[in-house]
């Protein structure tokens, strides 16, 4: 029961600032969520805070492995156009 961060993460520290459980770990510039600490914000907020502030589509997955913010959901750029420009 925990959220996870994917390789889409931009490293912007936003999730780290809002996580109520200090579950975001940053090692050598790489952001991960410590599963034992993440409570999916269930007791604290109505939505997981990391995925509510994260600016990167597909950067945060829920416990089932689905992107909370899929391609297109944050920027409005359709997935086909976005993926064409992904490096």
């Amino acid at each position, binding site marked *: 029961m925990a959220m996870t*961060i994917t390789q*889409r993460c*931009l490293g912007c520290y*936003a999730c780290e600032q809002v996580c109520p459980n200090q579950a975001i*770990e940053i090692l050598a510039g790489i952001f991960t969520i*410590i599963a034992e600490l993440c409570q999916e914000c269930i007791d604290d907020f109505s939505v997981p805070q990391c995925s509510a502030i994260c600016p990167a589509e597909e950067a945060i997955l829920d416990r089932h492995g689905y992107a909370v913010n899929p391609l297109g959901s944050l920027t409005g750029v359709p997935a086909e156009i976005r993926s064409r420009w992904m490096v």
Partner: protein
Amino acid sequence: MSLSHSGLRGERSLDHHPCFSEEAVHHYARMHLAVAPACNIQCHYCHRKYDCANESRPGVVSGLVTPEEALVRVSMAKARLPNLTVIGIAGPGDALANPARTFETCRRILAEFPDLMLCLSTNGLALPEHVDTIATLGIHHVTVTINAIDPEVGRHIYPWIYWKNRRIRSSEAAKILIDRQQEGIARLVTKKIWVKINSVLIPGVNDDHLPKVHTAIAGHGVFTHNIMPLISVPEHGTYYGLMGQREPTAHELTRVRSRCGLVKMMTHCRQCRSDAIGLLNDEILENDAGMSSCRSEQVNSSGGRVIPLIPVTGHVPPGISRPDRMVPRRIAIASHDGVHVNAHFGQASILTIFECFPDGGIRQSAQWPVPRYCFGDADCGTEQAPLETIVTMLSGCEAILCERIGYGPWQRLEAAGIQPINTYAGWRILQAIADHIGKHGTSTPMGGLNHGILEPRLAVASGR
């Protein structure tokens, strides 16, 4: 200019601020510090991974510095630039979305250099609750980016905001942002803090609307208004860039500016990045903040002075201790931008050394300007003396990660016990190092490389 600004702080402060005063551009230098990575809104002209030309800020991948590092930078820059008067905090995210980092930086700088003027740039969402801190710290200037005062216009510019622990979208988001901006600037003016408004001119979106924005902000008594043209190219990965939103023409810009005149219009803005340093007209740039090589060459060839490299201590990740006696592994990197492994060994103008500690800590320990030995294919590798210099410089390093490397230098380095590695071409430096270090252990999914499948990263057990 508004009467409300003629008091306490006096005219001197603005005459010495290159962004506020056209005269000061020629005499006084300013420096921007990228200490604030997070943002609390999304603008359609911004993709935070990349340097944002519109908001004068570098991308999160280039040159984030800690408050401690920021102070070191200021001290070093001050020693070299006696006319350094202004320190700005403008990114890579929003200064006020990172209040702890931002204000800690301000406190440190003011404690050490009380004569420096500090300024902040913000989108305004978090502004009202920070006005008192801004006033108490004695921050002189605040720049607020305001592109709309009507939520129906704003919703085409801001897809969402993070507000009261939720992501809010559309006009509801724009309305909250606009209300907070207006409240924030009114309170700043009451506290006699100089306010500059930046607006991005987006043709077809807010061009007709900006004169109304101008009237509204003039009513609050801001000092100056800077209308900047949208910069929109697909390579920046922004909504506008990818969706083909066009930039305004020079004529359109002039026309909109001419419809505004209630407060002083700023026209000398260079839309410089937030890690820039120097005079606006005679740009001096430091090199370790992720500046691209072409930019550094432009500076060099135009005769501008380049500040020597300032070594920056990398982050030691929280939760990681670094006992002094641990011996680090040393890895050299050839990079043009300080972010990616993207320089040909023979063409790198800087080599950066990273120290990797057994507990996972990675630290940038040194940056050396190197003599070039390769001047094109014809004489590649023939300039022996510089190569030997480099080999000596790199002694103690187990590997050099570069984009490409010639056969001769490869052999010479290998013979000296320094393994050249070109398989990380294009990788982000820290990820390349982490991968290299962990090669024989578990490898971590790396950012930006595998776009096929989304792989959750496994947190390293931290014992916390």
